[in-house]
């Protein structure tokens, strides 16, 4: 979707803007020729594309402050961007604005193995932190599937999770401090390297705020001792509802697995075709349940997991014997998105989260919707936290399929909200789910989000038009659309 494309934008004098930014940025840090802007026209959500007026690539906090001050003075919107791997269009440029790339902020400023903290610049890749901490047997726990490319600044903006967040938490649980700049170019410290911080918990508000409150220039993360050992249980079920009940039984038994993932039969069939993970193809659903820790701890926990899964009616239980087998179990799960891409020219990925007890009923409802809309849907998800990723398969070249897929997705997300859940568990609202916010929040709540934004950004210039829908937008729904071969970062796993 092309939102708008023009050389000069209404209300903003591009020449004046370029002049002002040239004064605060060194040579090579400002781009305004159309072809140079092209790589920035979208993030991981390619269905929405938009060229910014200019792209700024500062290297120092002072330069970022200069850009922000200039934009504040001229009333120009600013959209911050990390690696551009986000799946909800949070980094979609503003047609009249500056796209502020933090890609050059790639330094790890300090790593203190004794205090288990690292101070990093926002453009440092998620995995690079764990790599730097590895010699001390430490790592940064949140592991979004894009971790080889996504940056910590983007993780802060989206409150990124990963397959291990049931046990190890999300970004909000692992970031101690964020230094940011307001749109006025003023530095603010959120959180601290000590427990808590004076005043209210503005750090929690900053995390997951999708670049709408301040621009992140430095982050202190907590490092976690690396578990010595991990093992994975693969359990098969002849019924999806029973598999959902097994998830509840594991939690009821007092176990917090390091990862607890579920795939339905169409999903296992799809991945087995080209990963050969050895999944039982006759099972209606499979669970992957991982334990990590010291070898003694894992042995005890795996024993407990096995017992619960057996009592829950698993038809087949396998425990990984070595690291190669554990990775093989996971390979299938991690191949689910690419498998969807092979099955179908296009697919939609949903990100609703629901209370675990509704997993079975939601899957059954989705089966019914497949009939209703005449489209297939395969289901993979983070069962431990009830975070569902239904992948609706369609072909945009067949008349009406796109519309049916959109309606299908809308019905799933509305059901998630009706079941006491949320429209997005980890991908963010961005531009993609902005209209669906209307089904989850009341008018008064949306107005309060506006006021919270204004408390940080009174001028309303940081990433305007994202996350919070205007009330008259609340009629339509947008969807993540991924078309085969057109996704950016095709090398990244997506799970």
């Amino acid at each position: 979707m092309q939102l708008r494309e023009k050389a000069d934008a209404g209300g903003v004098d591009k020449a004046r803007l370029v002049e002002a930014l040239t004064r605060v940025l060194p040579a090579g840090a400002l781009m305004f020729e159309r072809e140079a802007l092209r790589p920035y026209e979208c993030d991981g959500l390619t269905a929405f594309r938009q060229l910014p007026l200019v792209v700024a690539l500062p290297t120092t906090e002072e330069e970022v402050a200069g850009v922000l001050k200039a934009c504040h003075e001229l009333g120009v919107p600013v959209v911050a961007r990390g690696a551009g791997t986000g799946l909800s269009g949070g980094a979609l440029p503003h047609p009249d604005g500056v796209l502020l790339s933090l890609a050059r902020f790639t330094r790890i400023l300090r790593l203190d193995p004794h205090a288990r903290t690292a101070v990093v610049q926002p453009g440092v890749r998620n995995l690079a932190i764990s790599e730097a901490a590895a010699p001390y047997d430490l790592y940064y726990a949140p592991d979004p599937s894009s971790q080889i490319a996504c940056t910590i600044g983007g993780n802060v903006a989206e409150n990124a999770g990963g397959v291990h967040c049931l046990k190890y938490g999300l970004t909000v649980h692992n970031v101690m401090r964020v230094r940011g700049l307001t749109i006025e170019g003023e530095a603010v410290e959120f959180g601290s390297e000590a427990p808590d911080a004076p005043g209210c918990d503005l750090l929690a508000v900053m995390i997951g705020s999708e670049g709408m409150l301040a621009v992140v220039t430095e982050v202190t993360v907590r490092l976690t001792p690396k578990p010595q050992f991990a093992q994975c249980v693969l359990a098969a079920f002849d019924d999806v509802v029973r598999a959902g009940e097994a998830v509840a039984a594991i939690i009821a038994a007092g176990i917090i697995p390091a990862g607890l993932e579920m795939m339905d039969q169409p999903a296992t069939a799809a991945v087995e075709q080209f990963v050969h993970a050895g999944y039982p193809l006759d099972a209606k659903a499979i669970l992957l349940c991982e334990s990590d820790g010291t070898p003694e701890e894992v042995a005890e926990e795996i024993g407990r997991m096995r017992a619960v899964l057996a009592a829950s009616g698993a038809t087949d239980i396998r425990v990984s014997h070595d690291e190669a087998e554990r990775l093989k179990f996971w390979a299938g799960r991690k191949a689910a998105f690419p498998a969807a891409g092979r099955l179908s020219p296009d697919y939609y990925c949903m990100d609703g989260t629901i209370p675990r007890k509704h997993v079975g009923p939601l899957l059954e409802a989705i089966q019914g919707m497949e009939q209703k809309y005449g489209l297939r849907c395969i289901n993979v998800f983070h069962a431990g936290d009830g975070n569902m990723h239904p992948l609706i398969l369609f072909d945009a070249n067949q008349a009406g399929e796109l519309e049916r897929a959109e309606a299908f997705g809308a019905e799933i997300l509305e059901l998630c909200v009706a079941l006491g859940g949320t429209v997005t568990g980890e991908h963010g609202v961005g531009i993609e789910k902005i209209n669906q916010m209307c089904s989850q929040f009341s008018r008064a709540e949306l107005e309060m989000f506006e006021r919270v934004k204004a408390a940080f950004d009174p001028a309303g210039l940081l990433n305007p038009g994202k996350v919070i829908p205007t009330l008259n937008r609340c009629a339509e729904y947008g969807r993540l659309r991924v078309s085969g071969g057109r996704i950016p970062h095709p090398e990244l796993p997506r799970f």
Partner: protein
Amino acid sequence: MSELVRQWQERVRAAAADGESLQLRGGGTKDFYGRRVSGTVLDTRAHRGVSAYEPTELVVSARAGTPLAELEQLLADRGQMLAFEPPHFGAAATVGGCVAAGLSGPRRLAAGPLRDYVLGVTVMDGRGEVLRFGGQVMKNVAGYDVSRLFAGSLGVFGILLEVSLKVLPVPFAERSLRFDCGESDAIRRLNDWGGQPLPLSASFWYGGVLTVRLSGAAAAVQAASAKLGGEPCDEAEAARFWLAVREQACAPLAQETAQPGGPTQPLWRIAVPSAAPALELTGRQCIEWGGGLRWLRTELPAQAVRERAHALGGHASLFAGGDRESEVFHPLPQASMAIHRRLKQAFDPAGVFNPGRLQDGL
């Protein structure tokens, strides 16, 4: 909406119109905390009851006036707990007061602070609007994280009506160990251990004795205990000990007076990076959270305590006692204070709720 909530709505709207202040209060067990406030008391205790609890969801939702002890008993009956071990400071403590105060106990070392467990809130703002933020699921990135903003806000943004909290299973096994060691040695050891995959769930150092608690799978506790050495504590005694730490019923946290009814020394809560060196301030001190929390009973002037905390990369609050008319929390930098003021304006434009409890001007 219940009749009670409707009454509060009218009460809040009338207060806003008349320029009246309301002092939000549950059981009053944390009246000592924060700055002294005036205003008509709005007692939240009638709005009580657990509205949803399913152990397999690891979530409990309770109305703000629910007694904290009642909630914890309900969880204990199902082998679960509030992992942040909130202090009660009295039998009357409520869930709402617990979240508004934002205080965590010894287990924060492993489990993280209270705010990590806040999944959703229903609140009433200063316009009398009932608003819901967050929800009852573990992962939720729809909109700003307003729920956690309310945790530890001391009621300055609005009335907590209901909260949803993540709960965790009670550990399968626990064991506490004691070591004789000095302050610097304790700080060093705790940080060394923190960097290893050990199931440490609490630590307390005072008067040359370091006590640590291990929690988790029986095999893990056994292995860690063998590795660390130290002197194992009797199980029942250890449980009493950690409860006393949590409730500040042991020295030097317990209020002690030279004579009954006499003045007590101010108690400072000094949060520092866990590996920060010894405080070197006069007074009686104890250390929690792997070195990150230093409690100090001292008559030193506020400025001296704050300067030292700041120099160590931390911050200091006058937790109990002392002058509660002036600022008791660490002063906020100007840019942060400006955001706080605008947030207060956003939620409570007429300044009805607990004015000044957190900071003058909020």
